[in-house]
C-alpha cells in the first residue's frame, strides 16, 4: 500500500516501494498536489526505472529535484521540493 506520511516540519515521505511503472510517478504527482509550495517530499521507490522517471516527471511539472540516491540494493530515495 502507498504510504504517505508527515516526517517533520514541511517534510513528507511517500513510500511507493513495491509499485512498478507508472504508479510511482502517478502517486508522486498526487502527493505533490497535496503539499504547499516549499514543502519537501521524499519519495522511496524500489522500481529501477522510476529513479529516472520520477525526477523527470517532477521537473516537467516545475518542481525541484534535490537528490536521487540509492539507499540500498534496488531502493532509491528521491528528494523533491514543491514549487
Amino acid at each position, binding site marked *: *500500500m*502507498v*504510504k*504517505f*506520511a*508527515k*516526517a517533520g516540519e514541511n517534510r513528507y*515521505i*511517500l*513510500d511507493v*516501494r*513495491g*509499485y*512498478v*511503472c*507508472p*504508479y510511482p*510517478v*502517478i*502517486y508522486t*504527482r*498526487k502527493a505533490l498536489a497535496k503539499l504547499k509550495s516549499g514543502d519537501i517530499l*521524499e519519495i*522511496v521507490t*524500489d*522500481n*529501477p*526505472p522510476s*529513479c*529516472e*522517471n520520477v525526477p*523527470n*516527471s517532477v521537473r*516537467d511539472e516545475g518542481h525541484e529535484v534535490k537528490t*536521487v540516491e*540509492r*539507499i*540500498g*540494493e*534496488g*531502493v*532509491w*530515495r528521491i528528494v523533491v521540493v514543491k514549487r
Partner: protein
Amino acid sequence: MSGKRGFGNFLQLYFRENVLSDRGLPEWLGGALIGVVNVFFLAWALKPFTIFSGYLNWGRYLYEILGLHNLVGKPESFFLFNKTGVGDIGLLLGAFTAAVLSHEFRVRKPLSRGEYIDAILGGLLMSMGTVLAVGCNWGGFFSAITALSLHGFLMFIGLIVGGWLGLLYVNWRTEKLLSIAEVPLALGEADISPKAGARKYSIPLGIIASIAILVVLTLYYVATGAILFLGILFMGFAMGVLIQRSRFCFASAFRDLPRGPEFRRSLALQKGIVVGLFIGVTGAFILKYKGYIDPLIYAKPAGLVNIVGGVIFGLGMVIAGGCASGSLWKAAEGHLRLWVTLLAMVISYPIFRALIHSYMPWIYGPKVFIPYIFGWGPGLAVIYLFLALYFLSLMYLEYKFYGRGGIVG
C-alpha cells in the same frame, strides 16, 4: 600489485559511472544496440529474435508432465535445443546479471491481490494477442518489421491503440486504488529504512550463480557440438543486458504515447525503437537481398486480425507491467508479479494457440513479404519512409509538448 589494483579500480569506477549507473544507457543507444543484436541473431540463428515460441516450448513441457499433451502438442524440441527458448534463457540471465551488477536486483513482492489479478490478466491478454498477431512485441512487431513482413506494421497500429487503452486502465485503477488508499495516505508513520531482507552482499552470490549457469550451459553445448545454441544463448544474454540497462520497456513506450504520466520516457523509448528498427531493417535487407538467408524467413500472415492482436497485446502488456521481453527482464530483476505473468503466459499460450489454430485458422491473412509486393529497392524505400514519418511524428510531439530546448533522451 598496486598498479594492477589501480587499473581494477579504474575499470570498476568506469563501468559504475558509464554502464551500471542509476541512469542506465540512453534509450537511443539501447535501441541501436538491440537493432544490431537483432541482425546478428537473424544471421546466426536463421530466425529473428523472438520470445513467445520459447513459452510455447516450456508450456508444452508442462502439459506433457501433466499428461495433457494431446491438447497442445508435444514439445517440438528439447528446451535446451529450442532457438527461441534458449534466447529467452539468455535474456533472463543477462537481465539478472546486469541488475545485480548495477545494484538493482531485489526481491519485490506484489502488494495486493489486485496486483496478482493484473499480473495474470495481463499475461492472458498477451498470450491471446500473440496468437492473433502471430507474434509478441518481437515476433509480431519489432522482429516482424525487421523481417520486412507486413504483419509487423499491422501489429504496430494495434499496439498504439492497445497502449492507449492500457493508459485508460491505469488511470481508472489509480483512481480506484487511491480511494481505497485514502486511509494510508493520511498522515502516519512510514518506515523507509531498507528492510532487513535487503542483504548487503547479494552481488557476488548473484554473479557466481549466473556465471556458473553460463559455464555449465557452455560446456554442455560444446560437448554436444551445438555451437548454434551457444551463440544464441550469448546473444540472448546481450539482449538481456541491453534491455535491462536501457530500460527498454515497450509497455511504457506505447502506454504513455498519448501523453501518459511517463510521456517523456515514452518518446525517448519510441525513438529508440525507430533507431533499432532502422538498423534491424537495413541488416535484414542486406542478408535477404544478397541471398545470405532465405528472404521469406519470418514472412508471416498479415490481416486485420494482426491489428486486433496488437490491441489485445498492447493492453495486456500495460496491465501486466511488462511486455514479452519486459516480463523476462523485470522477473530477472526480482519482481515476483512478473514471474506470475510469465507463468500465466507459459500456461495459457499453448492452449490459446491450439484453440485458434484448430478452430479458427481462417482468421489469418496471407503472408505478405514487402519486397515481393513493391520490389526490393522500392520495398526498402517504403519501409524507410514509414520509419521517417514515425520518427517525425515523435519529434513533432516532442516539439509540441516540450517546445524549445526540450531535448528528450
